[in-house]
């Protein structure tokens, strides 16, 4: 009797939770769907609120303009190149550091960790950092953009937690008795067991680099090196702020008119690579972010 009441309650519970999930699904989905239909609708229908569920006056003017725009293509290629390079460097260095910190027998572990963590909350600020980069002779070099996005202390902590959880101390002790050194242990045993965390790290670094523009804005000088987001910002943001530089009202309005036609298309084009990429890595998310483990 009691059991039945419980299962009755659970039925209600299931119904409620399913409804909530579906609702949640719709709320998240709709805005993205809207951008998609807006990208093939004409600007006037959108700004007068006629596009809600279906596209209106479908045309591909925006997209054809985008595909003709050399800046967007070169931005695309740059973004891909920066993202790949930065991700590779980031994953390798983070896995190494994360593994070292996961080892309890690392002397000075706590003070070293503090040195790392402190940088998360305190920084020298933009101008001093710029001066340092200048002293390193890296202003204008794409490498600075790649490097700047390639170390995240947050990710190191995640990696550390993962290794602590999945690589038992006994495993290393056993291996070292067999004469296996740290390097070999890391390469032969730790890495093969860590596909999930590597995938997650890769995703984190890739997303950050793909969506970031600030470093590129500050450190790059040539448009041929600009990543996509910087070009995107140029199109989406600068067109809405009027330049005080030159009184050429025609030109400003012309720019805004162009922006109006390509805005949504650009959003779609810029976001799609990540949206395509992440489902492939998604299956690793849960395994990788084993954070029962952030405690550490």
């Amino acid at each position, binding site marked *: 009797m009691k059991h039945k009441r419980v299962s009755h309650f659970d039925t209600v519970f299931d119904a409620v939770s399913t409804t909530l999930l579906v609702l949640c699904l719709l709320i998240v989905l709709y805005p993205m769907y809207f951008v998609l239909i807006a990208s093939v609708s004409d600007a006037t229908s959108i700004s007068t609120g006629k596009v809600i569920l279906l596209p209106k006056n479908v045309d591909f003017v925006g997209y054809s303009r985008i595909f003709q725009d050399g800046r967007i293509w070169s931005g695309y290629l740059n973004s891909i190149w920066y993202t790949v390079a930065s991700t590779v460097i980031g994953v390798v260095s983070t896995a190494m550091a994360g593994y*070292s910190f996961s080892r309890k027998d690392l002397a000075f572990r706590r003070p070293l960790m503090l040195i790392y963590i402190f940088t998360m909350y305190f920084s020298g600020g933009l101008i001093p950092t710029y001066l340092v980069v200048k002293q390193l002779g890296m202003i204008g070099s794409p490498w600075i953009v790649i490097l*700047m996005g390639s170390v995240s202390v*947050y990710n190191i902590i995640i990696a550390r937690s993962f290794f602590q959880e999945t690589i038992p101390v006994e495993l290393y002790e056993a291996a070292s008795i067999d004469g296996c050194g740290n390097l070999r242990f890391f390469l032969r045993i730790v890495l093969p067991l860590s596909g999930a965390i590597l995938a997650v790290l890769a995703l984190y670094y890739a997303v950050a680099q793909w969506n970031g523009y600030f470093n590129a804005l500050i450190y790059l000088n040539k448009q041929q090196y600009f990543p996509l987001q910087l070009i995107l910002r140029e199109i989406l943001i600068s067109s809405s702020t009027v330049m005080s530089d030159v009184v050429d009202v025609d030109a400003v309005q012309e720019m805004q008119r162009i922006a109006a036609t390509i805005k949504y298309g650009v959003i779609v084009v810029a976001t799609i690579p*990540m949206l395509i990429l992440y489902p492939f890595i998604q299956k690793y998310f849960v395994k990788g972010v084993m954070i029962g483990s*952030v405690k550490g």
Partner: protein
Amino acid sequence: MSKSLNRVARSIRRNWVLYLFLVPTLAYLILFHYWPMYGVQIAFKNFKPARGIEGSEWVGFKHFDKFFRSYMFSDLLKNTVILSLYQIAISFPFPILLALLLNYCVSQRLKKTTQMVTYAPHFISTVVLVGMLMVFLADSGVMNQILIKFGLQPRNFLSDASMFRHIYVWSHVWQRTGYASVIYIAALSGVSPELHEAAIVDGANKLQRMWHIDLPAIMPTAIILLIMNTGNMLSLGFEKVYLMQNDLNLSVSEIISTYVYKIGLLNAQFSYSTAIGLFNNAVNLVILLLVNKLSDKLTGTSLM
């Protein structure tokens, strides 16, 4: 004493590879984080670029003093703190809720789809997100069209200063909840099934199991994340807030980091803005330490 020193030396010799592993990241942090901190001294100087950092004269706490006495000070501090706390308070429970719901979801397909879809906004950049908000919440935008369809009063979302914080925080919830739930889903998958079986035998319903088994299991994770988010909060929001600002919401939307940007780069007040930035950092650290301490006291979990 010398014995323990010896032990340390031996451990270092044995594990030299581990230290080598730290070299790349440590070098990075020293180059791009610690070295620039040297430049923070311009907050206490009257920085003239032509004279360089060393050549500029010391002015002590002049810039801080000026800031504390400025008309903006109390507003900036208030706005920054309120926005941060509001965001922490609201964005904290939702990922947990979503993870719990997903964990009990009967349909595998619904679960997969929901996960897939709710993660997606995380991959949208801030520039794009704010662009979307502008379109959605415009007076004649989709949101108002929908309100009207349901017979509700349309609102001036963007022009109403009192809406700014809600828009800021809830759009954050929209964008990050799905992705933030991943961590909790992982933690939930670590809960031993035997606990649930035992509870079912005892006649516990799903809600009770959720409350007594799952929630305690993810609490430590939740607390750690809360601490980390708190520390990051004040520095993270800049771009989004800056993009969302307009004349009508400035009274609530001007926060320390946007002000630093306006004063520093756009007005070339390098020393003054560095001083304000330094103050911001200090506030950051204080908040972090407070939350850390609090969570240590309440739950015994802390970051360090």
